[in-house]
């Protein structure tokens, strides 16, 4: 087990390249659901969970079905055309299959939350089905897509894919809970009228992003520290 590599990957995804503050994905939910800390935390957990499920499913789909020469599709192709030596490549379907997997996992989470946490379900309202269109989840899937298969520069196993998804989700939760904490206090502040709402939230996010830039380069330092 390459524990140090895994640790660096998780650290990188959570803090250095935070999905919200570095890649700007998931901003809609970040602005929409960051008014109360409990809601923000619930949203963060839901997104993390969906991200984990979607990452596992889409890794499996790409590995077994879609990558060039994937085992399952090759088997089917060989059964239909015995003796043919062309390579089956379905990678054109990558994004479509990923978004389909995400939509199904969101449906699952929605049913689960409606059954077991009705209060939270009401509080989320329209933002729960909107997790489907949360860019952060598809972004994680695209990131994993690049690292699956024999042609990838640095092929990842299922462990790394899952770890990336969970730590990216934790980074999202961290960012949204921090922002909710600020916004609860911001309600008492005298913000100029045009900036109220999204304006001041984005400017606050800018200051957060500046703070998170402080993590840049730490991964290289840690890698040196661990002797790599």
């Amino acid at each position, binding site marked *: 087990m390459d524990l140090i590599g895994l640790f660096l990957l998780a650290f990188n995804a959570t803090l250095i390249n935070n999905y919200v503050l570095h890649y700007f*994905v998931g901003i*809609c939910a970040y602005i929409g659901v960051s008014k109360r800390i409990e809601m923000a935390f619930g949203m963060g957990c839901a997104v993390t969970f969906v991200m984990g499920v979607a990452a596992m499913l889409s890794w499996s789909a790409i590995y077994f079905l879609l990558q060039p020469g994937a085992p399952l599709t090759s088997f089917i192709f060989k059964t239909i055309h015995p003796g043919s030596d062309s390579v089956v490549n379905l990678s054109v379907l990558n*994004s479509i299959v990923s978004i389909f997997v995400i*939509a199904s996992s969101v449906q699952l989470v929605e049913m689960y939350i409606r059954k077991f946490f009705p209060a939270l379900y009401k509080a989320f309202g329209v933002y729960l089905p909107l997790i489907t*269109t949360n*860019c952060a989840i598809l972004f994680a899937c695209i990131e994993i897509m690049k690292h699956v298969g024999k042609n990838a520069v640095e092929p990842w196993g299922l462990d790394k894919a899952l770890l990336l998804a969970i730590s990216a989700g934790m980074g999202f939760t961290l960012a949204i809970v921090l922002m909710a904490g600020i916004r609860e206090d911001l309600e008492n502040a005298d913000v100029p009228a045009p900036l109220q709402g999204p304006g001041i939230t984005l400017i606050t996010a800018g200051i957060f992003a500046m703070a998170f830039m402080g993590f840049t380069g730490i991964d290289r330092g840690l890698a040196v520290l661990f002797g790599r």
Partner: protein
Amino acid sequence: MSKENPTALERFIWGIIPENPIFRQVLGTCPALAVSTDIKAALTMTCATAFVLICANTIISLIRHLLKPHLRIVVFVLTIASFVTIVDYLLAAFYYSMSLQLGPYVPLIIVNCIIICRCEVCASKQSVGVAISDAIGQSLGFGLALVSMASFREILGSGTWCGFRIMPDSWPNWVLMLLPPGAFFVFGFLIGAVNWFTSLKKNKSS
């Protein structure tokens, strides 16, 4: 601005300023923040999004009588995803350097809230002509927002506009504007400015 069935022209005009997808509805913020470092990237992104938006709106409007209420979001997303795949491969084939620069943000058009919102609000209710003009108007609004953000960021951050040097040579490039915090600041202040102008207009008319 809440009529039952707006006409094509109204839809077209609303998209540009009064219901600008980025500044007024605060949708599709992800590409607005991520690819507004320079004008060329912003324009390419606008064209890609406009293509997907127009095609998706047309298709959804054509099949709107066949949609089942509980399955419509899935149909929207799969339609959009097909067109995004087309754009992704076209861009990689004909403009490879830009495809590399935009990277994962091209497939991310699938989850651009603007497109799903337009399919839901307009295309699944109105005829093809209205849907197309709505898509064009919204794309223009999206492009306007992206280009204005990119202008600020490129001029302040690297002293050029669309690749031409316009700031004096003594201008110290304000690199922060090209980094993530700059995107958030420019976007926040632009939303503030648009809100301010709108409130000024309202005060004048009343």
